């Protein structure tokens, strides 16, 4: 076949998505032995221990909050939304890449998705779990929260307000969490069957057996499975976009300068994908080293993810630019004041410039291919992005609120120890869940990696006949 070719040994030739020389057996062994073994890597133990300690901190912080009240946080008037919403939006944003990688790359037939989609999806679920903690506990009495969040009439026969974006958020995040969970579980079923058939310990065998639902890989199973999975992908893609859109509505449908901008929905969505891909890379690079996954997470994956990070980062910067230009162009006194206060004479102007450094300046080095292939550089850029996206929410929330319409209400916002403790605690929750997941479930989709091998694509007989 005279397909397009690179000259031999050309460094520009694309790196394969899976290192050649593997078979179905070697892939199955490699990817399931990471879990079905009694050897736990020391690095795993250390990271999980750190995560677990932070998780304990979270529990203490939340217990103290419930017994004392929201006053332990730094929230005040006018900055009534502060760390809680910053962290909520940050986590939800991180939770975007998982389902999106899985869904949209499947629709675009990108075969490099198979090595990263599973743990990215898990990341989504854990990030959503972390995110939910914040609005839930910000209600003060979370055991009463369902009362005004779910569509159920209260004692006065009054329904929740469907014109409020906060209620839309309940539906959006609820749908996102549950659909992501079934998407993830559906993807896991065939691999759980592999574990069922390989596990040695009888208890593990039984657990994996129950979870795999009796999957036996019949051609009928696969046909329906692939149909359903593709449909889920098609449904999840707009769903992912809608979730951060609704989160952006929390701000944008208000009349507050700095929040009320029609660019918010696409700009928030791009920011979420940006943050999500950065977090996937942040996790993938160490995990790849820890479990020696170089054959299935190749430089091709790293490079492609770095490219997506760069592109979405540029869209986010486009959002900043539009906000700034239209803030001036509006001619509105309040918009222009907000802009100046945010960018140069406000007390929080430093955060805006730090944000531009993290999200605009630093990621630009990903334009250069050599740097996209350098793991240390990619990892560093992603850490900048993780911080930058947190700062972005800080800028949006705190700098827009701290200067009220009424100058007598102006105030500064200072986070307390408990604000930081809750944030660190959710990072601990995330790390713990993530590492437990890596230890007990296949973090790379085994059955999909099998399909990357050329022998997974047999030719139908009639066509083969035509060749002879």
């Amino acid at each position, binding site marked *: *076949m*005279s*397909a*397009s*070719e*690179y*000259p031999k040994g*050309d460094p*520009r*030739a694309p790196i394969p998505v899976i290192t050649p020389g593997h078979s179905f057996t070697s892939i199955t062994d490699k990817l399931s032995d990471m879990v079905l073994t009694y050897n736990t890597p020391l690095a795993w133990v250390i990271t999980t221990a750190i995560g677990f300690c932070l998780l304990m901190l979270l529990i203490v912080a939340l217990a103290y909050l419930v017994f004392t009240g929201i006053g332990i946080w730094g929230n005040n008037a006018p900055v009534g939304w502060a760390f809680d919403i910053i962290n909520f939006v940050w986590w939800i944003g991180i939770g975007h890449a998982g389902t999106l990688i899985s869904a949209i790359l499947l*629709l675009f037939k990108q075969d490099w998705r198979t090595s990263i989609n599973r743990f990215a999806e898990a990341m989504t679920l854990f990030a959503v779990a972390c995110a939910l903690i914040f609005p839930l506990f910000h209600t003060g009495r979370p055991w009463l929260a369902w009362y005004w969040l779910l569509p159920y009439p209260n004692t006065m026969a009054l329904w929740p307000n469907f*014109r409020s*974006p906060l209620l839309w958020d309940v539906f959006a995040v609820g749908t996102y969490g549950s659909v992501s969970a079934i998407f993830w579980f559906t993807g896991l079923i065939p691999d759980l069957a592999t574990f069922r058939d390989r596990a040695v310990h009888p208890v593990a065998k039984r657990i994996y057996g129950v979870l795999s639902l009796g999957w036996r890989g019949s051609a009928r199973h696969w046909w329906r499975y692939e149909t359903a999975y593709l449909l889920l992908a098609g449904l999840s893609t*707009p769903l992912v*976009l809608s979730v951060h*859109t609704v989160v952006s*509505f929390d701000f*944008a*449908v*208000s*009349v507050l300068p700095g929040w*009320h*901008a*029609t*660019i*918010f*929905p*696409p700009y928030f969505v791009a920011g979420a994908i940006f943050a999500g891909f950065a977090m996937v890379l942040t996790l993938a690079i160490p995990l790849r080293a820890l479990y020696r996954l170089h054959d299935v997470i190749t430089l091709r994956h790293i490079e492609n993810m770095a490219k997506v990070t760069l592109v979405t980062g*540029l869209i986010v910067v*486009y959002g900043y*630019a*539009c*906000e700034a230009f*239209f803030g001036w*162009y*509006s*001619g*509105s006194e309040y918009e222009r004041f907000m802009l100046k206060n945010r960018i140069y004479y406000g007390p929080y102007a430093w955060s805006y410039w730090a944000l531009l450094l993290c999200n605009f300046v630093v990621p630009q080095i990903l*334009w250069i291919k050599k740097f996209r292939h350098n793991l240390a550089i990619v990892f560093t850029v992603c850490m900048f992005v993780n911080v930058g996206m947190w700062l972005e929410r800080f800028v949006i929330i705190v700098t827009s609120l701290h200067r009220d319409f009424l100058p007598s209400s102006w105030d500064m916002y200072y986070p307390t120890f408990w604000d930081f403790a809750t944030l660190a605690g959710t990072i601990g929750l995330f790390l713990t869940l993530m590492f437990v997941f890596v230890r007990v479930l296949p973090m790379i989709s085994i059955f999909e990696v099998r399909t990357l091998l050329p022998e997974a694509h047999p030719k139908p007989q009639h*066509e083969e006949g*035509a*060749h002879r």
Partner: protein
Amino acid sequence: MATHSNDHLDEAVLMARPEAEIGRLGSRSLVLGGAGVLLALVGFFVSRETFLQSYLVGYIFWLSITLGSLGILMIHHLTGGAWGMVGRRIWEAGTKTLPLMVILFLPIAFNLEGLYAWARPEAAHDPVVQLKVAYLNAPFFYVRAVLFFVIWGGLIYVLNRWSREQDEEPARLIGPKDRRFRLLSGPGLCLLVITVTFMSVDWVMSLDPHFYSTIFGVLMLGGQGLATMAFTILVLSALVRFDPMARVAKPDVFHDLGKLMFAFVMLWAYFNVSQLLIIWSANLPEEIPFYLERLNGPWRWVSTILLLLQFVLPFLFLLSRDLKRNPSAVRWVATVILVMRVVDLVWTIGPVFRHEGSGLHWLDFALVLAIGALWLPLFWRSLAGRPLVPARDPYFKEAMAHVGH
């Protein structure tokens, strides 16, 4: 016996130039265009004012295909794929209409006062406009317009020249030179997005100098993408009837293009709902008149038509896999979408001027046809002047290898 080898991708056949067939397609579009020119002439003498508004609609409509072609061409250079190889010549021919668009801009440039409220002398007494006068003034407007055309023209010239060089060289392995399309397209797309954003502010949004919406540039970009995808599918469904397109534009390719059009339909709805929801909920006096005008009175029906024909109908239709793969079916959706692109532009531009009476004016469509009578011959001629398939692109065979049937 049908063989499954690559014989059907024989270079000599693919590089053929079916000038006669394309000429026939071109003359068919001339008939419609001719009618449009006549009607436009009548309109010019009936109502100078409406003529100018409709002229802007027609101009922005065709410009959106010129620029949309440039954008999608650059996206194709960055991502590769069979759909782009098949559509590439259509987009290249689309971009080559830019010189015409420069000339056609002159009537707008010389009639600023007729179109833009900020350019009229009364604007000196409008406090809101006075706050924006640093941006909304005629000299700066002209400077920006020149800058837009220079940037677009530069990108179009270079990309087309490189592409022609590729056709003239014999087929070969992928070499260092082939990266240049990609290297230019990344920054090129950034420039295009920025210029189109400001173009949308200058030429459309500032018609009402009080209104502002941060998503306006994104709406324009999405509209350009949608119009270009619909136009591509329409042209391709005509070209697929003869060689060489019959060999490469397989149902798989239509499926991919159909999916992209579907994506743009959804994006269009998404951007519009975002803008509507935010402005409607906040109900601010600076912004809400935009929707009060369009959701009430004569424009209400235009809004409803847009919702049904620009979103609901194409959405339901394009959900079906079989319909996306059928050129003669999907081209009807593409036609509806293109007509709705015109209606959408009228919906955006018209209410600034027409508060009473019916929303849509027959002149809007007449001028779209009339400008098409100039745009389309140029397009068809450029299309016939080059091989229809970029068979000498070193990435071509790799891209086409995955196309089934």
